């Protein structure tokens, strides 16, 4: 291109938010189904939800909230010019994300060992509402886990960019990736009470 590259941070941020809206609506479809089936068979949902591991769920909630904090601190730190603090905070965030995924893996593993997964013998024999609950549980947390993975990868990428000292607009890039990470947290904020605390 012969023309000077055009920088528009406010425009980039608008674009990022618009993208976040699409993510919101994507999960919204799953929450819509959850709401409908909860209204149909509340007892089944309560019984099924009671079997989820509240300790792991709470631990993961704390992890995501903390990682949201560290990303926010990283953004502020970069704006203040504290690059090593930024990098440290990003490191903690990615660590939180990885521990979250490991926890999630244990949780899924335990459920699958108890013969609870879509189409398992136990769910086919049980109440319809329970089967629906677990199908939604796997789909929603699975889709969320994919977002955690992608978010962590993006954060790592930004971290390397900043460490490599590429100064052009890295603040804006970090801010936008940070927004994405907060969205991952936001979705979990709704998953947690709806799936783990329906008692």
């Amino acid at each position: 291109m012969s023309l000077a590259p055009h920088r528009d941070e406010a425009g980039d941020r608008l674009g990022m938010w618009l993208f976040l809206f699409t993510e919101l609506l994507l999960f919204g479809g799953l929450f819509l189904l959850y709401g409908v089936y909860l209204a149909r068979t509340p007892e089944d949902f309560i019984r099924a939800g009671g079997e989820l591991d509240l300790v792991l769920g709470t631990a993961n909630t704390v992890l995501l909230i903390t990682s949201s904090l560290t990303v926010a601190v990283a953004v502020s730190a970069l704006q203040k010019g504290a690059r090593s603090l930024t990098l440290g905070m990003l490191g903690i965030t990615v660590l939180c994300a990885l521990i979250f995924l490991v926890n999630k893996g244990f949780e899924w593993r335990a459920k699958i060992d108890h013969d609870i997964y879509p189409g398992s013998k136990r769910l086919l024999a049980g109440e319809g509402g329970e089967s629906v609950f677990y199908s939604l549980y796997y789909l929603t947390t699975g889709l969320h886990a994919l977002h955690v993975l992608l978010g962590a990868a993006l954060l790592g990428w930004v971290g390397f960019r900043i460490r490599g000292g590429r100064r052009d607009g890295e603040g804006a890039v970090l801010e936008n990736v940070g927004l994405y990470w907060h969205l991952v947290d936001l979705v979990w904020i709704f998953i947690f009470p709806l799936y783990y605390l329906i008692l």
Partner: protein
Amino acid sequence: MSEQRQTHIIGYGTLVLVWVLLLLLTGTTIAVSRVDLGALHVWAALGIACLKAALVIGIFMHMRYEGRLLRLSLLTALVTLAIFIGLTFFDVLYR
């Protein structure tokens, strides 16, 4: 154009305060889930979740400091989702 935002740096103190509030709210929502509230239960859980979401969006995601355009856009997205869910319940509740 008219929506230019001054870069607003949020202090570490504020961020940590929000984090503490989020943890407290998480504790609250677990505690509330142990109390038998009947159907109110879901609404209480959702109410607290909305409060937490507002904190994350407002402070962590800087929405408090953004211009009218982004705020209106967010409102549009949320209202759209609410309409999609709400109108579906005309079917679910009356079937």
